[in-house]
């Protein structure tokens, strides 16, 4: 705990103004990743002062902003300091002609979307909980949605950052130009590093124009016709169509989204109206026998996706539900193994007495499984699911787990063979291991 006036310790008011330092009342959060003292940053200098102080005095720091990813990794219930970036928000620079945006980390995706819409541009992230999740968290956790199929993920969209290193120094990576190979591509190190290498204090992102027209084709496949899903997916991927998503929903998720209990392919098209309609025509002409087909356009399609972006647990509102009985998994695999993994997820759910909702992208290989059940059933479910997915060359990461289950299950799976390099990088950037300690792969 930080006290003022102790010998060798900075007076607390020299780190941040008093009103930005709060005793944390909520020490026993069911998702952990808290801090004894909450420090709110309003500027990059604030972040820098907190880290310089913590580094000098060997204080550990957990970083938070929107809190939606509080259940993602971490086996430290309370660090010395919980550094909040939630108030460090806003657009720094939007260069409309250059299609670039520079923004502070505590800005929510919704706020960014609202700021950009009037210029006909957007950040091409379709990540969940846009009104809660902040851009800093999305980038630090490398979150993504179904439309990464066409638009890419954070590693394709982030072109520059400012990072406050653990000693308080500010380092710029990348720049504000869309093409840049000067020096190492240091942006990549921080994307998905869960704040273990530095605190992101500014992000520059490549923007895209808003689509002129949006369409969504939902293909509902009857039970037993799973081979048709694969055949159809292979066919569309081998065609010249350019779907923005090719996302498969499992039967329970389809039930929630559309009131039908069957596998559903959600195929989005975003282009000129003519081009969208042509592609929808292609889908119709290639529909397998017995597939029910729904087409939505514009506002109706947008609303469907809006609903889709509010699925699964998140760390911010988890307390409203029963936090002890929810988990979310990110599954990576070969593109077409998504179907295999979703079927596996369903089959194992019945065996382990958990309920799941799941979806995955047949063109990009990332699936999400949301699990509900008793703690012990969730643990046994994840273990068996992970073993089987890994046998198929995939991986399973727990993007949301109650704190007390994290060590039992292992959030990240086995360490990679090159773990020593990851450790070396961590040691370079944060030698005292003060930042988000034990939050990342292999306990980094």
């Amino acid at each position: 705990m930080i006290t003022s006036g102790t010998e060798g310790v900075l007076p607390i008011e020299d780190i941040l103004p008093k009103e930005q330092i709060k005793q944390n009342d909520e020490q026993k959060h069911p998702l952990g990743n808290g801090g004894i003292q909450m420090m709110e940053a309003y500027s990059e200098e604030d972040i820098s002062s907190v880290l310089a102080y913590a580094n000098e005095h060997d204080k550990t720091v957990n970083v938070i902003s929107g809190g939606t990813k509080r259940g993602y990794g971490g086996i430290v219930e309370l660090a010395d300091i919980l550094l909040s970036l939630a108030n460090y928000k806003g657009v720094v620079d939007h260069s409309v002609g250059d299609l670039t945006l520079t923004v502070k980390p505590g800005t929510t995706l919704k706020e960014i979307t609202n700021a950009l819409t009037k210029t006909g541009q957007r950040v091409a992230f379709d990540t969940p909980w846009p009104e809660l999740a902040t851009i800093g968290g999305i980038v630090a956790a490398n979150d993504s949605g179904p439309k990464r199929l066409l638009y890419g993920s954070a590693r394709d969209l982030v072109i520059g950052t400012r990072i406050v290193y653990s000693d308080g120094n500010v380092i710029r990576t990348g720049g504000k130009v869309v093409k840049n190979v000067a020096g190492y591509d240091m942006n990549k190190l921080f994307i998905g590093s869960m704040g273990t290498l530095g605190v992101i204090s500014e992000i520059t992102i490549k923007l895209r124009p808003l689509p002129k027209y949006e369409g969504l084709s939902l293909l509902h496949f009857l039970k037993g016709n799973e081979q048709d899903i694969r055949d159809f997916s292979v066919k569309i991927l081998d065609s010249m169509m350019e779907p923005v998503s090719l996302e498969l929903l499992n039967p329970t998720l389809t039930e929630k989204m559309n009131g039908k209990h069957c596998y559903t392919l959600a195929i989005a098209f975003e282009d000129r109206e003519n081009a969208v309609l042509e592609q929808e025509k292609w889908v119709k002409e290639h529909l397998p026998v017995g597939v029910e087909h729904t087409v939505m356009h514009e506002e109706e399609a947008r609303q469907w996706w809006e609903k889709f972006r509010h699925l699964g647990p998140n760390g911010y509102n988890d307390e409203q539900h029963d936090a002890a009985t929810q988990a979310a998994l990110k599954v990576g695999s070969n593109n077409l193994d998504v179907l295999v993994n979703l079927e596996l997820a369903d089959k194992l759910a019945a065996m382990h007495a958990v309920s799941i909702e799941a979806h995955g992208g047949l063109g990009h290989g990332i699936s999400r499984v949301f699990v509900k059940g008793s703690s012990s059933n969730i643990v046994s479910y994840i273990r068996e699911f992970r073993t089987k997915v890994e046998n198929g060359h995939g991986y399973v990461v727990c993007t949301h787990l109650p704190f007390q289950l994290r060590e039992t299950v292992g959030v990240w799976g086995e360490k990679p063979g090159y773990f020593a390099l990851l450790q070396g990088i961590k040691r370079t950037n944060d030698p005292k291991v003060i930042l988000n300690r034990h939050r990342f792969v292999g306990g980094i």
Partner: protein
Amino acid sequence: MIKDVRNLFGKKRQRQKPDAVVQKLMDIVGENEVLYLKEDLISYECDGYTMSKGMPKAVVFVKSTKQVTDVVKCLNKEETPYIARGAGTGLSGGATPLGGEVLISLVKMKKMLHLDLENRKAVVEPGFINLKLTQSISDKGYYYAPDPSSQYTCTIGGNVAENSGGAHCLKYGVTTNHILGLEIVLPSGEVIELGEEGVPDRPGYDLLGLLTGSEGTLGIVTKITVKVLKNPEGKKTVLAYFDEIDDASKAVSEIIAAGIIPAALEMMDSIAIEGVESAAYPVGHPRDIAAFLLIEVDGIAAGIEDQIDEILTVCKNNNVREVKVAKDEAERGLWWANRKMGFGAMGAISPDYLVQDGVIPRTRLPEVLTKIAEISKKYELRIANIFHAGDGNLHPLILYDASIPGESERASKAGSECLKACADVGGSITGEHGVGIEKSAEMRFIFSDEEIAAQTDIRAVFNPKNLLNPGKLFPQPGRCAEVKKELVKA
């Protein structure tokens, strides 16, 4: 000791016996796979950047990952520095030996190991030629997107090292956006696999992204999993001639502002046009225009016509002299061949030329072009401009004559000043050619000492003894500028 051998042409010549290190390399890869005689090494003195040259100790041709690890381990033990080399088309001196390094040539590792079109990926060895990849899958309607101008000869391994771009990366991204997995031999000799099976977002720091574009200073790539794309259904190409550079620049910004992301959006100015019209693929561009734009739109056929109409309107609103759409694939092909000859064509109008590679926010194009014109005047050297205008990547080509005393030095200074002009508007000193030797001093235009140290600290994690491609990419206080000066003099 002298022994008789026959060289490539069967003539007898007398050969110096290899030294102990070279002998050990021969023991690993075989006698015929190591070059070490001065006359054999001359063509390895530099890559596509010819202003700096140095003699390698030897060139070793490896054929497998195992041989790479054995060679690396051997050189580590001998504390002999080494550099991985592909086709040697790099434009910043990344593969140029300045300290008597051993060159590990990967050109004989050139197989495609696996093709999985259902999952849209291919696995190739590093010496696989860029264009050959597209050619070997085009019959099935697929292609590999990054298309540097040197794609006829450059290798995918080299593309990974440099994070190469190309004319079509405006819409499709550069090499890093198309790499799914890498097998790497670390400077320790250890082999690691990143992005196994090409599965995205594997847990851990994104070493795949870090290694791509690290200019061969962190590890040697021995296997590459790339993303392959389906050919677009439709494609249209527009050529627009402008009397004023400013009008062409404005048209670029307005096309982007209209919500169009062309597959390519290229610009050439009058000097560049003079070059390409004197080279192998003349199109018949008018010689008295200030600039042309070459614009390509691709995607779903039904959506293209609208976009072409909008582009034509933007051009007309910006005082275009003439604008036309390619009438067939032959015409489109000629326009592109003419454009891709850009750099080489400078040889037709100047004895020597230096290519630069700055990047700027595209809205700053007019002011940076004015600045480049001033630099041209100041150094009394003609500067041709070829740009990937859509993504703000400029290639000023500084024309000079190395046989005139002092002219090479002026060209080098003019090049550096062009990069400063880019850095000053918030841009970068390189968009796709890399830093190498050429621009290591200019890294200071955009990075502070701490920011450079943050990167060299990362290098130390992978390459602690700095035996792998030393002296590249980062400025070395008090050395780099001197070396450059000496080399220019030489």
